[in-house]
């Protein structure tokens, strides 16, 4: 009896091992596993595509369009001074939305370096120039992806460009994902400044 049970258990374990190995091999090629990048392995996890993220943040919209903004050298310098940080992007894409002609604000997809790899996320800013929603779209590092949870991301709601938006100030970092928390926080602050600079009259300043 015991021998039969042990044999059955062993057979099940071997089956699990084979399945596990196959799963590991399969995920290595997919969006949710280990892939190679020029500077090491990349654990690419795609949580939202651009379409999915836009559909989520602008769920009520009946019209969606994009605007590209290329800051002038003066605007770039001003932006960098405000942030105290070099801005490497040549231009920014603003996803705008409206419902029955009413402006629903803008959403920007941005990337911020984590420990080694960039984190791609979307920041939705309302017409009052305050953050409405933040969504982590792609996470590429092997650990720290807890920042994708709304438990952390909800903290950004209601923040505007005048808020510090800093870890240990008005944002509580996620333990075990300190650097990713800091990166997301920096990215949100950057988007708020970019949106304020691009739409000073339409968002916030006109309110």
């Amino acid at each position: 009896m015991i021998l039969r049970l042990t044999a059955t258990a062993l057979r099940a374990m071997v089956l699990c091992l084979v399945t596990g190995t196959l799963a590991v091999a399969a995920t290595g090629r997919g969006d949710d596993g280990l892939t190679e990048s020029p500077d090491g392995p990349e654990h690419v996890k795609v949580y939202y595509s651009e379409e999915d993220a836009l559909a989520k943040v602008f769920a009520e919209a009946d019209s969606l369009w994009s605007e590209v903004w290329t800051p002038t050298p003066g605007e770039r310098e001003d932006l960098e001074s405000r942030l105290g940080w070099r801005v490497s992007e040549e231009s920014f894409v603003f996803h705008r939305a409206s419902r029955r002609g009413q402006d629903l604000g803008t959403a920007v997809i941005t990337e911020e370096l984590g420990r080694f790899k960039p984190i791609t996320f979307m920041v939705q800013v309302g017409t009052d120039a305050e953050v409405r929603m933040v969504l982590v779209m792609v996470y590429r590092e092997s650990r720290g992806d807890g920042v994708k949870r709304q438990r952390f991301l909800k903290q950004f709601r209601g923040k505007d460009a005048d808020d510090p938006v800093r870890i240990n100030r008005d944002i509580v970092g996620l333990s075990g994902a300190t650097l990713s928390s800091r990166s997301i926080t920096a990215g949100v602050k950057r988007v708020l400044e970019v949106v304020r600079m691009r739409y000073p009259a339409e968002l916030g300043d006109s309110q």
Partner: protein
Amino acid sequence: MTPRERHLWARWHRRLGAAGAVFMLLIAITGLLLAHPRWLGPGEIETTALAADPDRSARWLRGTELGLEVSEDDGRTWREAPMLAPPGTIIRIAFAPDEPSRVYVLGSDGLVSAEDGGRIWAAIAWPESLLTPWPELRDLALGTGGRVRVLTDAGILASADHGVSWRWSSVGSPGNADRLRDAIHRLHTGYWLGESGLLINDLMALVLVILTASGLVMLARPSRRNGRR
């Protein structure tokens, strides 16, 4: 249980209950204070690094656990230096000896640099293949001609091009024994196949536990076949 024993139990129950209530009160009060540190007043921010600007005699940079501060009046007043993503607790601030407008700041989570004396900063990226597992960053030194050295607990990271490319310096860098130890560690923990390799390790560990348990049971119970003989 006799009435006396019951009374004794009840008395100890009350005492322990009172001690527990005091403990819970302490936890609740300290929890409130931790959640609202401003109630205790502004705390002093510890200085973790200090550097003088070689270009301007009255200008100083001060590192704290929150970021970077700058003084333009020889340290009398300080203001926060705008920096979008400070690299954690600041460990060292260093100006390049042959290019004083170039300044580097080493923090517990990375390295940032500025080419304009500390007005506009940029993060310096390190390749993952070089810094896995992530070492503890300890110190920073700058030489002439764009040479940067970062002391870590795994050795010295060296760059000769202002931090664009990096390699482990031959002095104090991980040797073959360290690399072997790291490989063994990865094999032992299952990380040789990334996080997914942990699944295989867990399953194998489960197999061993089942085998050991069933083997022990079989050892404890006399075999029927042997018994018949």
